[in-house]
């Protein structure tokens, strides 16, 4: 049928699958999916809404990191305590007392009291410690003394008095202190609890928020994209050229790639900036690991939910009906996220969250949070991922069936039973 190709006024003949035998070959399918995905990606990358949205999230991330970095007490740096330069003994006492009570205290030598007060006033010091008679320590603060620092200073002041008394009795304070340091409690746990790093908990919560937002926004974009093609009636023209499943897969891949670009951007900027500023003192490996897990789980979660979102969108023809049909799917995302964000930061080894994080429909929000917080047994991480991966083809097949049956029916909402029943 090549003789017909001569008739195009605009173009020379082009390779065509026409003629029947090569129809619907995998090359055609790949080309179609690539074109559809490419259109989804480029039109959205160019849209103002996308750029503004991405910029806002980036600013929020940068702002949060800077806030952690600049606000005293939140970041990794301990309390900065000014001590008069002359008082080496006090410095040493405060340091060892802080160690004993587990407070992070950095001592900073200051020239004199006036200079110290100025630095407390402008916030570069958290406290200025001045020894007074009878072992009392005067602590100059802006308005309140941090409780942990207070405990450390109380211990320090008592030790100072004690050392003085020991010296008065002719003893050696160092010897006594060494002896006292020997005393204490040795805990012998039968089942030692996992020690969680606060930074990892924060990182886990951040990962949870990020993956939740990405899945929700990506899923809704997929559903809206499907409804848009129905409401603009362009879907019939598309289905005259490509198969329904090619259209669905192309759309999911295109929007998935868009979300992927965002999440990589967010992860790299967030972790990169906080590492560079020293806000995050985790090892590079652990930080990079978190970002990688985040991306893996975003991909798994997105692909899993996106097909369901596409199928739901195919049931309706008007944009205002979309939120109703995607509700059942968003609820899974929301439940996983809410359980994770409300339970995990205070109780990272919560068993309910642990079980939920292995169930495929909840795993994409919960598992990356747990992984970022640390302490997930390898078998749980692997099983959760495998179960989720195994769920994808089942959901995709089901969604494909609903989509194929429903997407061509423009008008009132297609009942789910009807969409599932017909072949």
């Amino acid at each position, binding site marked *: 049928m090549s003789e017909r190709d001569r008739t195009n006024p605009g173009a020379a003949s082009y390779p065509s*699958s026409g003629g*029947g035998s090569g129809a619907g070959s995998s090359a055609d399918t790949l080309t179609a999916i690539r074109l559809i995905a490419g259109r989804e990606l480029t039109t959205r990358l160019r849209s103002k809404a996308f750029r503004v949205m991405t910029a806002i999230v980036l600013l929020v991330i940068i702002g949060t990191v800077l806030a952690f970095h600049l606000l005293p007490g939140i970041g990794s740096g301990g309390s900065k305590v000014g001590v008069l330069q002359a008082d080496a003994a006090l410095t040493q006492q405060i340091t060892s007392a802080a160690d004993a009570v587990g407070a992070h205290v950095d001592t900073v030598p200051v020239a004199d009291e006036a200079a110290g007060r100025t630095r407390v006033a402008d916030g570069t010091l958290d406290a200025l410690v001045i020894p007074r008679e009878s072992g009392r320590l005067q602590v100059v603060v802006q308005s309140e003394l941090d409780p942990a620092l207070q405990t450390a200073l109380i211990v320090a002041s008592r030790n100072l008095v004690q050392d003085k008394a020991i010296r008065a009795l002719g003893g050696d304070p160092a010897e006594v202190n060494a002896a006292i340091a020997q005393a204490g409690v040795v805990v012998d746990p039968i089942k030692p609890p996992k020690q969680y790093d606060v930074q990892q908990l924060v990182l886990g919560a951040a990962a949870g928020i990020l993956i939740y937002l990405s899945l929700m926004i990506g899923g809704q974009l997929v559903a809206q994209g499907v409804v848009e093609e129905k409401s603009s009636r362009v879907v*019939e023209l598309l289905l*005259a050229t490509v198969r329904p499943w090619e259209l669905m897969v192309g759309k999911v891949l295109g929007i998935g790639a868009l979300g992927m670009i965002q999440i990589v951007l967010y992860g790299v900027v967030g972790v990169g900036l906080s590492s560079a500023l020293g806000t995050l003192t985790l090892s590079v490996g652990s930080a990079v690991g978190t970002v990688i897990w985040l991306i893996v789980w975003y991909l798994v979660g997105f692909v899993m939910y996106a097909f369901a979102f596409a199928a739901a969108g195919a049931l309706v023809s008007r944009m205002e009906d979309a939120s109703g049909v995607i509700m059942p799917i968003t609820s899974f995302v929301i439940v996983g996220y809410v359980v994770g964000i409300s339970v995990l930061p205070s109780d990272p080894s919560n068993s309910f969250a642990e079980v939920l994080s292995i169930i495929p429909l909840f795993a994409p929000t919960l598992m990356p949070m747990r992984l970022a917080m640390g302490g997930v047994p390898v078998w749980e991480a692997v099983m959760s991922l495998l179960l989720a991966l195994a769920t994808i083809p089942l959901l995709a097949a089901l969604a494909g069936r609903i989509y194929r049956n429903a997407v*061509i029916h423009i008008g009132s909402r297609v009942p789910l039973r009807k969409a599932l029943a017909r072949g």
Partner: protein
Amino acid sequence: MTTTALAIDGLSKRYGPVVALDDMTFEVRAGEIFGFVGSNGAGKTTTMRIVLGVLAPDSGEVRWEGRPIDAGIRRRIGYMPEERGLYPKMKVGEQLIYFARLHGMPVAAATAAARTWAETLGIASRFGDDVQALSLGNQQRVQLAAALVHNPAVLVLDEPFSGLDPVAVDVMSRVLAERAAAGVPVIFSSHQLDLVQRICHRVGIVKAGRMVACGSVDELRSGAGAHLVVTTPGAPAGWAAAVPGVTPLSTDGDTVALSLAPGTDDQSVLTAALAVGPVTEFSWRKPDLVELFRHVVTAEEAA
């Protein structure tokens, strides 16, 4: 113009108790413009959607050059759906290129074809505008361009003329004639029967999911009874009814359309007419498609 390009063979489709198509059968030949007419809901759109594979028939098949139609051939059909549809927020040019590429054209050829068709259809100046910024008439032109841009081997157009201004109708008619002359079978549906009569080589009249009349316009027109048209200004109404063997069909002012029984001499009618006053028109007329359509549709209803 004798080879059958597209054969629609025994298509049936039901929606629950509603019969949309009932053994719909016809063929379109290479290089032929086939007009598809029928009342609303007669099954034209359903037939076209089945040809495009958008719907599946309950039974029957569509064949292209003797082989059952498949996805590869369907990609070579240019389609204009009844429900017009384009991406509203996509630029005209990008949209045309996108559809050309979806049909398998490489980028360069797709871009060239999009430009050419935009020029041919008079929308070249809107190439970089979003479709939603265009008037409905211009959107319709873009829609036609989207059907033509991939150099289709078949054209299936569902009411391509509805909503077009006379200039656009002329452009569209010319394009269809050119495509047909290049050997492309063109099938289109329309309610504008005068237009169908003017540009179609063959016409199919559909009624309740069945093809009830199919053939060239001349064949169909000579098949139905011709009638005599007589204009007699000033004659009393009902003068014709008195003439033996004459049945008045319709009256329009001074003009009557008459059906003559076999063996009736038309000159006797002229004599009778002259007897009642001056005759300014006296002619035999073949029914046009509108009358034919009414005739076929009402005859079926009466049956």
